[in-house]
Each structure stands twice: as C-alpha cells, then as structure tokens.
C-alpha cells in the first residue's frame, strides 16, 4: 500500500477563458492534514471540485489510493472514500436534517430501485448519533434547513461528513460562519480525524486555525500552487507573503 492517498499531476481547469486552476501538482500522504490557503478567487474551491468529481478537469491526472481515477460524479468519489463539505454546503433547503445527511445514500427498508422505501427511523437515529459526535446544537432535526441559522446549516453539512467513514475528508471553509464554540467543536472533529489517521484537506482563511490543526500548508495564487510549506518551517507572516505574491516558492518560480 502506497504511502500517498491523493496525488494530482498537472491538474488544470479552464472555464471558457478563465484559467481557474493551472497545472496543480499536489501530494497528500495517508493520515496527513494539509491546509489549502489563498485569496478569494485563487482557485481553491475549483481544485476541490475537480478532485471530488463535481466537475471534469480540463486536463491533468488524479491518483487516489494508488489508482488513477476519473470520477464521473460526486457519488463515485464518495464511494471511493472521499467525503466533502462544499463551500456552498450542498444542502436541500426544503428537506430536514436526516434527509440532508443521507441525501443520495438513503437508508432503505425495501430495495425497489428508484421506488425503494425509506427507513426514516434508521436515518433519524443515525442522525442523532452523528450530531452528538459533532456536538452540534440543533433543537429539532425535523426542522427544514431553510429555517436554520447559517451556522447550523454549516454544522449539518459537517455532520454529514463526520457521520460516514472515509479515507479522505475535504472541508472547504467549514467554519466560515460559525460561532466561537461551534468553531472549536469543528476543530475538535478535525483533531479526531487526525487521531483516527484519516487524511484531510482543509480550505481555510483562518491563520490561527490552520497553524493549530494541520501539518502542511499549500498556498494557491491566481489558479496556481505557489508554495508548499511544512508547518515547523514557516509562520503566519511567511504564509501571508506567499498568498499576496510578495514571495513565491523556489520550486514554483517558473510557474508563477
């Protein structure tokens, strides 16, 4: 078994003329926690969408768990073992918490193809267990997402990934709208992942959080990776310099 869980080679995504992601070479080792940082529009979410099968890359390769992969959709990525909290959260507003947690992978009482009967009770109980794990505060899980606070919505999306076991978890700005306690809670979940040896990619703008949680920091700028920094060898100022363009990693000079 290879030591590397995810590798991208020359991963590129163009939206028409917009070069949102260019030649990204990225390596994640098993059990490693890596932060992806960069200014707004740097291409972080685009990067996430390519490796999770939401979009098809313009060019480049993705190797996951030792195999070259081309996910036809997010469900394939998920079945391969990648759980994702998308920046847009990907929740259905008119459905309640269990519905959303199990959206696209519903528990079934009888399997009748598309007309399979749902196991509401099973999903509710699993939801409560999942939420307890994340210590999220949601007074009534039967409430629809539409009627929830921004933070609660985010918690539902995070609980969705924490409820299911995976080889790689990706979180795109998971604490952007969260309060102090909730942020701490999500950070605890992430530390839990670390203890259990699950790999993680964390997209975040929060310098303190990144330095608290991860082993390595990868910086994106204008669609390119411009730095790959081991935490012990860097500090906040250094990272900011890479983000803003004051500095570029030696191995990326030609690219930038």
């Amino acid at each position, binding site marked *: 078994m290879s030591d590397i869980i995810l590798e991208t080679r020359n991963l590129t995504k163009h939206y028409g003329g917009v070069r949102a992601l260019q030649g990204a070479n990225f390596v994640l080792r098993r059990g490693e926690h890596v932060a992806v940082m960069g200014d707004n529009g740097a291409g972080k979410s685009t990067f996430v969408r390519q490796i999770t099968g939401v979009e098809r890359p313009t060019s480049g390769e993705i190797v996951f768990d030792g195999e070259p992969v081309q996910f036809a959709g997010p469900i394939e990525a998920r079945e391969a073992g990648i759980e994702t909290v998308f920046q847009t959260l990907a929740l259905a507003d008119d459905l309640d918490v269990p519905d959303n947690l199990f959206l*696209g992978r519903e528990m079934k009482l009888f399997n*009748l193809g598309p007309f399979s009967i749902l196991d509401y009770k099973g999903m509710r109980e699993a939801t*409560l267990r999942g939420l307890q794990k994340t210590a999220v*505060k949601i007074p009534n899980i039967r409430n629809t997402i539409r009627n929830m606070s921004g933070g609660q919505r985010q918690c539902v999306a995070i609980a969705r990934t924490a409820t299911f076991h995976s080889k790689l978890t990706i979180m795109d700005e998971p604490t952007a709208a969260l309060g102090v306690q909730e942020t701490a809670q999500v950070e605890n979940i992430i530390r839990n992942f670390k203890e259990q040896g699950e790999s993680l990619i964390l997209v975040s703008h929060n310098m303190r959080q990144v330095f608290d949680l991860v082993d390595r920091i990868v910086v994106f700028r204008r669609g390119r990776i411009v730095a790959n920094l081991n935490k012990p060898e860097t500090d906040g100022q250094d990272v900011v310099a890479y983000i803003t363009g004051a500095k570029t990693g030696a191995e990326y000079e030609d690219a930038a």
Partner: protein
Amino acid sequence: MSDTAHGVGGLPFDASKRVWPNELNVFGALVLIVVVFEVLGASLMGQSFLFDSQGRFDTIFNEQRLYIIVLQVSIVGIIAIGVTQVIIAGGIDLSSGSIVGATAMIAMSFAQVAEVNGQPNPKGVFIEQGWVDLPVVVPVMVGLACGLAAGLINGLLIAYTRIPPFIATLGMMVTARGIAKWWSKGQPISFPTQEYAAIGNGFGGWMPVVIFVGLAILFQLILKFTVYGKHTYAIGSNEEAARMSGIKVNRHKVLVYTIAGMLAALAALVLSSKNLTAQAGMGVMYELDAIAMAVIGGVSLSGGRGSIVGTVIGALIFGVIISGFTFLRLDAYYQEMVKGAVIVGAVVLDQWRQRYQALRT
C-alpha cells in the same frame, strides 16, 4: 432515548407544538368557499349549494351536485398528480392537455367496434386493416405508450439540453395538438368496445373517481416514503445540492416527466372512454387547470414544496368554484375570467406564504 429526542441541545424545543401543515390551510379555504356559496345560494337562489334542501335525495347532501363536482375534477386531477411532482421537482409541464388530445385520438382508433347496428363502423379508422374489436389491453397499451413517448421526449429535452421546461413542454404542447388534429384529419373517432367504455364508466359511473383517488393515494405514498419522492423534493429544492449529493438529477428528471406524460395519457383513456368518443380538441387548457389545482393546493411553483394531498384539495376547490358558478347561473364568460383570477391569486398567495413563513418561523 432516541424515541423521544428531537434534536441535540441549543434552544428549547417543544415537541408537542407541531408545525401546522399547509394542507390544513388549503382545506380551510375549501370549507370557506363552500360556506360562501351556501350563503349566496340561500340569499340569491333560495336553495342550498351542497345540501339537499328540497328533499330530492336519500341523504342530507345534494348527491347529484357532489357527484358532478367530483367527477369533473377527477380526470384533470389525474393529470394534476403528474404535474404536481413535476412542479415539486422544480419544473413545469404545459403539454399535458395536448397529450390528452393526441392520446385520446390514437388510443380510441384501436378501441373501435367492427359494426354499429349491423353496419360497418362509420367512424372506423383501421377497418381496412381489420384492427377492430381488439382486446382492451391494445388501446390501453397504445395510449400509455403515447404518454410515455411524449413524457420521455419532454424529459430528455429538459435534462440533456439546456432548454427550460417551459419552452420544451410548450413545444410538445403544440406538436401533440398537431398530431391530434392530423391523426384523423379532424374527424372525431367513436364507437369503442364495451370493455373500453368501462374504463370511464365502470363502477356505476364512478370509475374516473376511483382511478383518481387510487392514483392520488399511490403517489402521495411514493412522494413521502420512497427514494424517488425524496429526490424529487431535493431537486426542486436545490438542484445543485442534489447533484453534488450524488443524485442522478438528469435521469430523475426524465423519470418525472415520463410519469407525468403517462398520467396524462391515462386521463385521455378515461376521458375518451367516458365520452365514448375522441376529438382532436380534447383536453384543451387541461394543462392550466392541472397546474391551477396544484398551485391552489399549495404546491410551490419555485419547487421543493407541496404534496399530492394538497393538490387533491386544490382540485376540489377548483371543482367547487366551477360548480358554484353554474349553481349561481353565472355566465360561462365570467366563469373563465374568475378561473383566471383564481389561478393568479393562488400564485400570489404562494409568494406571500413564502415570505410570511420566513417572518413567522
């Protein structure tokens, strides 16, 4: 404890206070409308609207009027079931009325008897081919296949091209009506077999109602308790999220529109059978009536919200209003105008309800 837990922590939650289902509001509106007609009836006509004020029936109800209301509503109601799930999935279907027309013509021409009063069937379409006196499964299958084909084309266009549902189904509306007129060059098609006639007239004339209610129950259960239903709501609620959650959105849409097409075809079978004839103009405006029933019943045109139960009550409201105007001897012109106003009113109410809900909860 999992039986009693409703959530985890946070604000106090009183589980005894259930959310008031919107269907109850709609039902309240139905009762209110009936009361209005009763009051108008008593003051203007000197008789009751739905009750037996002249001792003509065995029960306290005006059975005849109730029957007419329910029967009138049933056939369009079958269409409205299909339209409801289309709207919940965030779409719209304008083609159902025309699918009724085309399906009625085509199916009926496979349901004809060979001879009428000892003479060859004067309206026979396939007499030369000898396709007469066929078993009833033939026209039923042919009819359902028409609906399936039309719905499938709608679904494929909407899912795999970027044509919005409004335009795609508008195209189908015009095309299917064209087919209905072209099929027999405008001639009505009549004289079906006994078995075919039973589809719309069986159970002492209650067959359309039985079919409507049966399908309504079936689809209420499907939407509530199956993966199909969950995904329908999810797609109407947030298509992007549904896609990211791994729901095969395109495939699901094709299925939704195909089912809607087949329900419209079924309505065509019932209607042509009940009338013992098919005409190219059958089902004109039914698509709007069906949409109106759904919207009156609380199905949100923006998708993700509503239920078949709501649509059934919406259908009854629709039937009561039409019947009420006839009862008050209002001219047909006024009826159509008011019908239009009711549809617009229901949409406005939907918008208002969405905003009001956000304020209240």
